[in-house]
């Protein structure tokens, strides 16, 4: 959901890192495949190797940053907050709406019976 912005940003960053790890392996495979050919395309080779190195460094930096942030933020205690009370209040409001709808339908049925 777009509502949990702060949590989603970090989780989205971690998902991007996962995709980048897959790209790292793919680059490595492309480089080795290119080396296996008789006529190697040097430009492609250099580009893929540079991309591989940059991706690895980027992944390491990002993950180090996430671990550093967690070291600063984690308290070791369990989080005891909840949204239970407001969820219960909202549930009761929806029950009230359902009850009102039920009673209105009873009144409507009674009026129809009277008309008949």
């Amino acid at each position, binding site marked *: 959901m777009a509502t949990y912005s702060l*949590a989603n940003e970090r989780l989205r960053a971690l998902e991007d890192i996962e995709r980048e790890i897959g790209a790292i392996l793919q680059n490595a495979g492309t480089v080795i495949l290119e080396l296996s050919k008789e006529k190697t395309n040097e430009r492609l080779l250099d580009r893929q190797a540079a991309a591989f190195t940059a991706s690895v460094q980027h992944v390491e930096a990002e993950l180090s940053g996430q671990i550093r942030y967690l070291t600063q933020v984690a308290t*070791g205690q369990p989080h005891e907050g909840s949204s239970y009370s407001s969820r219960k209040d909202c549930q009761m409001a929806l029950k009230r709406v359902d009850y009102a709808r039920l009673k*209105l339908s009873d009144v409507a049925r009674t009026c129809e019976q009277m008309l008949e």
Partner: protein
Amino acid sequence: MAQQRALPQSKETLLQSYNKRLKDDVKSVMDNFTEIIKSAKIEDETQVSRATQGEQDNYEMHVRAANIVRAGESLMKLVSDLKQFLILNDFPSVNEAIDQRNQQLRALQEECDRKLIALRDEVSIDLYELEEEYYSSSSSLCEANGRPLCEAYWRLDLDTDSADGLSAPVLASPEPSAGPLQAAAPAHSHASGPGPTEHA
């Protein structure tokens, strides 16, 4: 500037293990890749025959490629563990998520109550008319003549005219009857005891 808090041993150990895993996996990927590139170099002089050297290089490349894949998978597992740790222990984002959820639920509850109140106001007007009609018709016309409620409602205008004629003297009576009532009161009091002065 955030200072490092004194974490419990387990959490601190866990985060240190994450760091170590990250360093080891990245090092493994880089080293194995570099060694594969190095072993791809064709050397003129070899200690064993070319075929043997080729087989050895082939086996080494397979092992190093498997090491790169294993390190990549270990990095994915690390990212998954970090996600889990983040969800459980990142209190600022958990607090914000809880606040947002509370706001959403409260807004929904207020909207439901607001709409119920508006519905109540509308229905109370209609119910008042229905009740008026029901009680007036059940007391006078409907029970006597067996007319349905809707027809009684349609004849409300006619009934209202006759009802106005009946109620006018009843309504008007308190004002002009001040004299007759007051005349009756002194008559009663005259019988019981000394009367009021206006009698005289």
